[in-house]
């Protein structure tokens, strides 16, 4: 009851000095707002990336060109050959279920006057299997197509929709970068697979892509699917062995390829986010200190300004402890108000940015909201202590005479 009354009094006082209260809280609002919006964006991005990884599956291993071991610098020397895919599968039949070689290109696809540009993926029949990505109409690329350098393509869901609308696409002929391809199928609607918007992608046989379309000798990457997720380490050993042998890498020499698993990506991701986190929390720390100084300043002014009031309160029966409490509660209210407004502002800011850019995912973890408020309360109490002690130590006789 007593504390409630003191709180009401404090709120009342703060409302009377609305502009000043707002200015005092500004530091905390900005600090907390910055933290909340940054954390929201960071967490959103992390979640988005993780989701994409997870859509790839824990049993997948990605093999890229070039080594990534030496001081985190990628030496992008191309080395992966289409034969590597077959060899890996052949040499590790009990570990590996499938291997899909990939060559990523891009191009213009035309069907009469309709024209879209997008990703062109050269791969094999394993791609659909590994990614659990199936054809909706028609059929997928077969080993025969791959062997025969066939000019056939499978359209992503959105590509088919753009070019053909409601009409069946299978059996039609489209031109990709000027070359005629026979559409053999349309993929199901999938959205994103990893970091690729597969609905906008056109799939052609790997041989066609490398030999007849882009004139390339090396793959972009290999996607390996293990028999099960817990055999991933054994698979990595198998892949290393096969590739080092076929690439004729001597013992002691560095790999000319690099192997990634979902866990490794996650590890790297968490390293990056940790780094961002440290930067963020440092900024947050600084702005909170600034906020605290702001509140302390205002509280000191308030104590001086209300010297007489303090004298009166003591004269009518307030203990020094009551005076201390009054100013501490006031400082805490200012600070927590700032904290709450900061959370709202930060949240709104993050969501605005997300809406505005259409790219960012936003996720505000409840714990950060809670922590912000706790931090604000702590800041309020810490910045209020000194002014409150000053107020409580005032000599009532002097205070009553204070002009």
């Amino acid at each position, binding site marked *: 009851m007593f504390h409630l009354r003191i709180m009401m009094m404090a709120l009342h006082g703060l409302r009377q000095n609305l502009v000043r209260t707002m200015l005092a809280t500004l530091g905390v609002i900005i600090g907390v707002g910055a933290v909340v919006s940054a954390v929201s964006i960071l967490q959103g991005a992390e979640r988005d990336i993780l989701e994409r990884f997870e859509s790839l599956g824990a049993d997948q291993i990605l093999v890229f060109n070039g080594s990534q071991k030496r001081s985190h610098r990628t030496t992008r020397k191309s080395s992966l050959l289409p034969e590597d895919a077959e060899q890996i599968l052949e040499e590790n039949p009990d570990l590996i279920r499938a291997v899909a070689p990939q060559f990523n290109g891009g191009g213009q696809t035309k069907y009469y006057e309709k024209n879209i540009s997008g990703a062109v993926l050269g791969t094999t029949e394993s791609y659909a299997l590994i990614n659990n990505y199936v054809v909706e109409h028609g059929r997928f690329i077969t080993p025969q197509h791959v062997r025969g350098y066939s000019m056939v393509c499978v359209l992503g869901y959105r590509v088919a929709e753009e070019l053909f609308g409601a009409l069946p696409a299978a059996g039609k002929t489209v031109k990709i970068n000027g070359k005629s391809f026979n559409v053999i199928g349309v993929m199901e609607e999938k959205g994103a697979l990893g970091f690729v918007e597969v609905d906008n992608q056109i799939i052609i046989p790997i041989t066609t892509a490398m030999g007849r379309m882009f004139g390339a000798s090396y793959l972009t990457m290999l996607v390996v699917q293990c028999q099960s997720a817990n055999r991933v380490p054994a698979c990595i050993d198998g892949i290393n062995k096969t590739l080092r042998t076929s690439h004729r890498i001597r013992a002691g020499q560095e790999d000319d390829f690099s192997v990634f698993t979902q866990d490794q990506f996650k590890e790297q991701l968490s390293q990056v986010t940790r780094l961002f986190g440290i930067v963020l929390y440092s900024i947050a720390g600084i702005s909170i200190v600034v906020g605290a100084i702001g509140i302390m300043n205002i509280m000191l002014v308030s104590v001086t300004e209300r010297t007489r009031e303090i004298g*009166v309160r003591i004269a*009518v029966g307030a203990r020094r402890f009551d005076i201390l409490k009054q100013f501490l509660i006031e400082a805490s209210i200012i600070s927590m108000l700032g904290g709450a407004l900061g959370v709202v502002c930060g949240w709104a800011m993050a969501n605005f940015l997300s809406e505005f850019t259409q790219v960012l995912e936003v996720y505000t973890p409840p714990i950060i909201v809670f922590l912000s408020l706790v931090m604000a309360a702590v800041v309020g109490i810490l910045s209020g202590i000194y002014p409150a002690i000053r107020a409580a130590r005032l000599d009532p006789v002097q205070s009553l005479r204070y002009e």
Partner: protein
Amino acid sequence: MIKAAQLHKEYRMGDTVVHALDGVDLHVRPGEFISLTGASGSGKSTLMHIFGCLDQPTSGVVAFQGEQISHMNDKQLARIRNQHIGFVFQTFNLINRTSALENVAVPLVYTRRSFSKKTAMAALDRVGLGARAKHKPSEMSGGECQRVAIARAIVNKPLLLLADEPTGNLDTRTGRQIMQIFHDLHSDGMTIMLVTHEIDVAVQAERMIQMSDGKIIEDTAIDDERREEILNVAHDEHAKAFRDKAQRGLRSKSLTPPAERAES
């Protein structure tokens, strides 16, 4: 009610020690109406602050209702101030941002009993300001502010009401209204101690104490006869002082009539 014996209070101001109180003995009995007069710096305010448990004497003993206040801690002193003492100040000392009613209710906040607006309202009614409960001090006249301050002082029904120049900032007519409230409270049995340097106000009490240089130099009971006497003396002194002043003024250059100046 309050007994003080051999009270001393010293302040250090720079290198000199000021004896604000220099051996004061005083016994305030319940139900008394005392006025405390004296020139500024005579120690009357210091005495009042000590009686109000706002200040402690350097030496000497003060007992409030038989208990020595110098032995009390902040909590106990605060309780006495809250429950048994009411303060009225020359400059009202109201909290400007809140209403009259909330000002009156301030002591109740520290009483720690269940809080009731009725109690505050009753005190406001007592000083005849019930209708202005919602007004803020800035919307009221000086007399009204002082009445709010009195209501605040009596809201906890104290035993002792201490007033420091309560009419000092008011015109004569308003001052008289305020004094009437004190008389009413006194006739209801409240003990009142009023600090003033206005002799007309001081003689309205039933006991008048005069201080000078930290000592009590006169302590008289006042009845109608004595009141007349004091006022007459005061008026004579006042008239004499006025005459002296006027004569001094005439002698000074600026007030000398032009004719006289020409002669000299």
